[in-house]
């Protein structure tokens, strides 16, 4: 009895002591409940309904999930997304890594170049979309700048993202290469974290730059490579940036740039198939979760210090 009383008194004291903390965390708690937790629950609930926000709200059971796998557009959407991921992720990661190696060379003025290379990342995506639609214009009478280059080099013109085949997605990867400076900053910070003693020891042993790279820099950056691989992967699967430049509201000619993230956007905010859009989003969550787990299971190549 006395023990419980003591415990109760202690608890009361703790509660009293907690008031300040709770007051500070109150706005965040409200925000998370209102704009994250409740929407998550709702989103899950809508998966089982045919819902258009205005009038229709019919229970369809697993119908929306069945539709995800029988939707005739799905084959194109999934294959586009996978092709984009397979080309874009290595291109961006390797490209920004190589650029970071270049900027890591001890030379005067590399800081200025670091800033210059980052500038394209500062340009808002929508501006990028407008600029690219001019630069990559495919009209044979009024070719865009890239096609002017190709003509000058005596090469055939390209349709870039206006094409109805894989050229369209390759053009998006080409655009993304202009944003390499963003990843570069993170790699450079990682290089700084590598203890200089390692290089000193290697130099005493007479190691050349190439050897130092493969024996020190590369293995020491594997944790970051792994982290960037996962984050880039998640972002790539949700990509809907084609909205800002590709024809037909981002779908591209012949659905050449129709990808999973854009599919969700279109079903939700163009066709108002809210239930179906939620089901698509949850399928993506499961896929992303599974692949993240798979990546973690196969990360033996990652070298952690501790």
């Amino acid at each position: 009895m006395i023990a419980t009383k003591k415990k109760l008194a202690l608890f009361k004291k703790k509660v009293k002591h907690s008031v300040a903390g709770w007051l500070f965390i109150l706005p965040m708690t409200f925000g998370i409940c209102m704009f994250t937790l409740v929407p998550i629950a709702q989103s899950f609930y809508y998966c089982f309904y045919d819902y258009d926000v205005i009038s229709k709200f019919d229970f369809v059971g697993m119908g929306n999930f069945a539709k995800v796998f029988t939707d005739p557009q799905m084959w194109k959407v999934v294959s586009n997304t996978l092709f984009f991921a397979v080309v874009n992720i290595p291109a961006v990661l390797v490209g920004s890594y190589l650029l970071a190696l270049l900027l890591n060379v001890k030379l005067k003025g590399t800081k200025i170049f670091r800033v210059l290379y980052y500038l394209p990342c500062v340009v808002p995506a929508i501006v990028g979309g407008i600029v690219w639609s001019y630069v990559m214009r495919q009209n044979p009478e009024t070719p865009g700048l890239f096609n002017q280059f190709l003509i000058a080099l005596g090469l055939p013109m390209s349709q870039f993202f206006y094409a109805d085949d894989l050229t369209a997605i390759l053009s998006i990867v080409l655009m993304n290469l202009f944003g390499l400076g963003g990843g570069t900053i993170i790699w450079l910070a990682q290089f700084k974290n590598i203890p200089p003693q390692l290089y000193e020891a290697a130099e005493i042993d007479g190691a050349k730059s190439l050897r130092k790279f493969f024996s020190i820099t590369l293995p020491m950056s594997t944790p970051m490579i792994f982290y960037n691989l996962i984050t880039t992967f998640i972002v790539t699967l949700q990509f809907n940036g084609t909205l800002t430049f590709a024809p037909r509201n981002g779908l591209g000619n012949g659905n050449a740039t129709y990808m999973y993230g854009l599919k969700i956007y279109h079903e939700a905010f163009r066709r108002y198939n809210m239930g179906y859009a939620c089901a698509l989003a949850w399928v993506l969550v499961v896929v992303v979760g599974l692949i993240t787990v798979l990546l973690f299971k196969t990360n033996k190549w990652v070298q952690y210090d501790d």
Partner: protein
Amino acid sequence: MTDTALYKTRRVVKKSALYLLLIAFAVVFLFPYVFMVNRGLMSNARILEPHMYYWPDGLHFKNYALAFRDGGYGKPLLNSFIVGAIVGVSTPLSSFLAAYAFSKLEWLGKKAMFTLMMLTSLLPGIVTQVPLYVLYNDLGLTNTLFPLFLPGLFFCGAMNVFLMRQFLMSVPKEMEESAKLDGANAFLRCFRICAPLCTPIIIYMAVQGFVGIWGDYLTPSMYNNRTDAPYTLAYALYTMTGEETNSTHPEWIFAAATIMSIVPTIAFIAFQKYLIEGIATAGLKL
């Protein structure tokens, strides 16, 4: 003697080659940016010519004035600044309040709350978009500027809170002890003592918040469906995509696009020390 000379020339050649490479990359990376600025400065006659020119025919700075006066980009520009200012303040503020509670105060449920917060960062944002549309629709907030800043008034993402918490944890406890003895409460202590020490990360978050919402065309495109809705500059430009070729004044689009890009560019260059540090730690910490 010849050996050292040879070594010297080799080093000079190597250095020059590296500089050439660095400059070549800079030219490539900045090529679309310069293209945009050039087109915003072209005369109407030149931009409407079938041949696509890279360089402008003189510097027609009046395009900027005309784009914002006659081109209809004036009000969106103002809206962008209003929303940007709100988010620029709310991002560091909301993150700071939560981070202070996580790093400096003891309270029941702290660990659980922190785990919950970190879990929210794992969920793709795409999941909550549809219910948020329904919520804004119910509250009558579609076709307003509210969806752009409302969630951020309370919570601007686990990443920001996490970073701020890391920063606050490096502020020594002793800093607050004397104020505590003088009877200052947690609220006073956090704003008088801890906040000034967090200036670098506060600047980083303010600029990130501003730049993020400044370029956000997606949120209005989801939650706006009327043409009389208040546009931001990003959304005004978004409604132009695919229409550029029909426009009689494409130079206005590019003038507006230039302003749209120059504002974050200035912010980046002015605060680059804080930003590069912040971007790097944000990338490394999680």
